[in-house]
């Protein structure tokens, strides 16, 4: 009896890690935008939703293979991110934060309504069933393993870009002192567009991975949006490492909480943990000491 329970526990821990990878990817995208541009994209998960629809139509309607469609979906959402910055954020850069928040909140509803009108409210499925991997008595879905692996590769690629390239270094620098960037010969407007496209590309990658596990519908963003936002706040908004740690912490709470009862209880525990932590460490887990 105990042995079987141990196996379930181990399975839940590993599934938590797998879930954490995708959540960390989402949190990285949102943190990137917040850390660099100082704006919160409330509509971040809706970009993921659009990317999932993109994948659905490319695979189901145009008969493209999953691996051919994925790069296109990533580019599509990257372009959408750049467009969001250009049309909505750039004109509001000097506006009060509440106005920026309301504007991206407005985009959330626009995208949801657009998806409802354009795609209908049906739940759509990619129609790809990946096998289940059996390891001893444990079972892991191949789609989760793929999602974890790809999320990890995506995050490592971002890390290399941010640390090795001039543009990546400028993205990190801009969040520390944006007034003097012109003295470095940096066009901040351009860097903001690049950053928004990168944030969009991460949402696009997440869309490619999530569409393997979840059906697409206009409100699917609600399944990832709030939790991504909470992870970012828990890790300290704009803090990349904090977001990474918080994503795995959250994922484990959800996964282990789900083990003891329903998966929904896992979410309840995670949110309760969040509220508790907001009392203990309101500035985030890895808050910088001032």
């Amino acid at each position, binding site marked *: 009896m105990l042995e079987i329970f141990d196996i379930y526990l181990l399975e839940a821990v590993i599934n938590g890690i797998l879930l954490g990878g995708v959540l960390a990817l989402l949190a990285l995208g949102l943190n990137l935008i917040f850390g660099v541009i100082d704006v919160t994209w409330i509509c971040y998960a809706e970009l993921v939703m659009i990317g999932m629809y993109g994948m659905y139509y490319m695979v189901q309607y145009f008969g493209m293979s999953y691996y051919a469609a994925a790069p296109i979906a990533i580019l599509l959402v990257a372009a959408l991110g750049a467009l969001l910055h250009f049309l909505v954020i750039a004109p509001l850069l000097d506006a009060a934060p509440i106005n920026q928040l309301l504007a991206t909140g407005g985009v959330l509803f626009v995208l949801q309504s657009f998806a409802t009108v354009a795609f209908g409210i049906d739940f759509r499925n990619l129609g790809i069933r990946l096998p289940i991997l059996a390891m001893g008595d444990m079972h892991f879905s191949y789609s989760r393993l793929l999602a974890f692996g790809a999320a990890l590769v995506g995050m490592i690629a971002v890390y290399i870009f941010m640390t090795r390239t*001039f543009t990546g270094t400028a993205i*990190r*620098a801009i969040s520390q002192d944006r*007034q003097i960037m*012109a*003295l470095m*010969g940096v*066009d901040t407007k351009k860097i903001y567009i690049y950053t928004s496209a990168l944030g969009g590309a991460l949402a696009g990658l997440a869309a490619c991975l999530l569409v393997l596990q979840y059906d697409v519908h206009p409100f699917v963003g609600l399944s990832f949006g709030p939790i991504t936002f909470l992870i970012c706040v828990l890790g300290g908004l704009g803090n990349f490492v904090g977001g990474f740690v918080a994503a795995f912490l959250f994922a484990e709470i959800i996964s282990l909480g789900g083990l003891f009862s329903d998966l929904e209880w896992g979410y309840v525990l995670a949110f309760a943990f969040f509220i508790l932590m907001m009392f203990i460490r309101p500035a985030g887990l890895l808050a910088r000491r001032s």
Partner: protein
Amino acid sequence: MLELKSVDAGYGSFHALFGVSLDVKAGEAVGVIGPNGAGKTTLMRVISGLIRPTKGSIAMQGTDVLKTPAHKIVELGIAHVPENRRLFPRLTVEDNLKMGAFMPAARAKFAQRLEFVFDLFPRMKERRNQMAGTMSGGEQQMCAIGRALMSDPKLLLLDEPSAGLAPVVVQQVFELVKRIRSGGLTVLIVEQNVQQVLQVVDRAYLLEAGSIRASGSAEAMLKDDSIRQAYLGV
């Protein structure tokens, strides 16, 4: 090399500069001295494009600086070491230097420029992987000057390089300015530390309440009675 003609500038309704005319010739070191709030930092910011004048003209080797976008001014050969250094505190020393070489022409010879700056400041080489914000004030000033030199400028703007540094370190900073000069670089330096700055520059301007009140060779300025009384305390 650099020529300002009757430049007016300010922040909103606050006027900081009134009809400032000034020129710097190639190979010269020129100082701008004056009390706190005289508009010295504004003058620097106007030259590097951080703020735009309301009147007047600025030319760098014949190019109209006012028609050049702020982030392209560094490509004209103007590098600005801002007041209070303004390093990126949570970037390593090397990444700070990398930012100084962001423009395409400097990027192409990044390795060469890095070697040049490391030769000039061996301390920066030792600390290349340290966060810039964790260094001492003097080291941060070296890093800030190094960052500006990464773009291989023709004209170096130094805004109060001695501010907030211990006297011994101030001495080192001015020694350094001398060394940079001897390499052929043109320097425009703004300072409150009048005694020291007049030792390293060829000429100087006195800026008071936003206007140029006097100008002349460094020796003449050192001997001028009103300057001695107001700024040298003798």
